């Protein structure tokens, strides 16, 4: 077997790295100029470019069937359902979830999350945290979290379940939410939230338990 191609110098290495996107026409002007300057003097990269072109051809020709997939998804979006207007983000989706009859079939643990979330919805129109201002407050929140703007209600519920957190308030004007996690598992829960792809930011807002 031939030895792997090794970069001869920086210019060669840079050009060779960029060749696939040169071949697909996806380089900006400066990258393209870099590649073309190098190509004029490098027979190896000229050969590599022909390889790239052939690879592009090989990767074409894939056309999976579409219609059945659309029918499946069409059923999920429930065309007769009235959607909540204008409020972007996760809570609109969670509101829809709460209104679905299917919620009744959720397991007990899931129901616990949804019920707590339902409590939070009573204060959705308020800009402040309910938990911080109510005269008979529910469990105080100890973690603040911002979900990614494209997170769905399923994503949020998955995240809450995985971290053992309960939703107790929000959103703030910055679309942050207040969560409650057990004090003795706060560090692990925050670490899990911070590692979650659907979470943009998660931080504890009380002192670390001793």
């Amino acid at each position: 077997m031939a030895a792997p191609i090794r970069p001869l110098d920086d210019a060669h290495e840079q050009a060779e790295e960029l060749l696939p996107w040169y071949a697909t026409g996806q380089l900006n002007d400066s990258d393209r100029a870099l590649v073309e300057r190098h190509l004029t003097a490098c027979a190896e990269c000229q050969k590599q470019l022909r390889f790239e072109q052939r690879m592009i051809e090989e990767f074409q020709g894939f056309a999976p069937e579409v219609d059945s997939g659309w029918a499946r998804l069409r059923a999920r979006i429930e065309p007769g359902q009235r959607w909540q207007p204008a409020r972007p983000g996760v809570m609109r989706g969670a509101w829809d979830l709460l209104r679905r009859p299917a919620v009744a079939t959720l397991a007990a643990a899931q129901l616990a999350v949804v019920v707590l979330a339902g409590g939070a919805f009573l204060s959705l129109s308020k800009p402040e945290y309910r938990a911080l201002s109510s005269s008979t407050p529910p469990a105080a929140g100890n973690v603040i979290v911002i979900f990614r703007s494209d997170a769905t209600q399923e994503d949020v519920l998955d995240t809450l379940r995985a971290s053992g957190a309960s939703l107790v308030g929000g959103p703030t004007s910055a679309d942050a939410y207040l969560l409650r996690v057990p004090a003795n598992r706060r560090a692990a829960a925050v670490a899990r939230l911070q590692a979650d792809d659907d979470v943009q930011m998660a931080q504890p807002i009380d002192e670390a338990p001793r």
Partner: protein
Amino acid sequence: MNAFGTAIRPRTDAARPSKIAEGELLDRVSAKDVHAFEELYRIYQPRLARFLINLVQRPQLVEEVLDDTMMAVWQTASSFRGASKPSTWIFAIAYRKAVKARARWPMPVEDPQDDMRVSDDAAPDEGLQQQRLHDALRAAMDRLSPDHRAVVDLTYFHDLGYREIAEIMSCPVDTVKTRMFHARRRLKEAMAGGFEDWL
């Protein structure tokens, strides 16, 4: 055709809608226009299916992640601000969901979903040598890691630039370049001299 005798693909593929057209579709989807959503689905279903089979490998999981991705598009289209291309935004959602699905389900040792990979339908006059090269390419792709496969396919098939791929996969651009560099080298090594016959 460039000075080196190779055809460089134009930046926009006539078979695919422009960024502007997809942006308009997303606007309509955010207003809960089901027809616009169906149009967007028909554009993205084949692209996402192909992208996802590289990442999760199980056909049922591909369907699940693809549906969840498009549901997220339906539910959160109003959060698309146009800071990136619609395709980058949608692929990034799919990637995050695929990573989560992968964590829930271990990958199979054998991949029974060959029919969702690069088609190896041979032309009637295609020779055994050509078929052997196709098989070698398929086998080499199977031996790459899911993330390496995804970078290769996003580049060669989906026509995405390295910056867009980095945004989709939430990694530095140098990581994308390095993954592509090593993936290409492994593909060539796996085909052990055979690819010279292509050129």
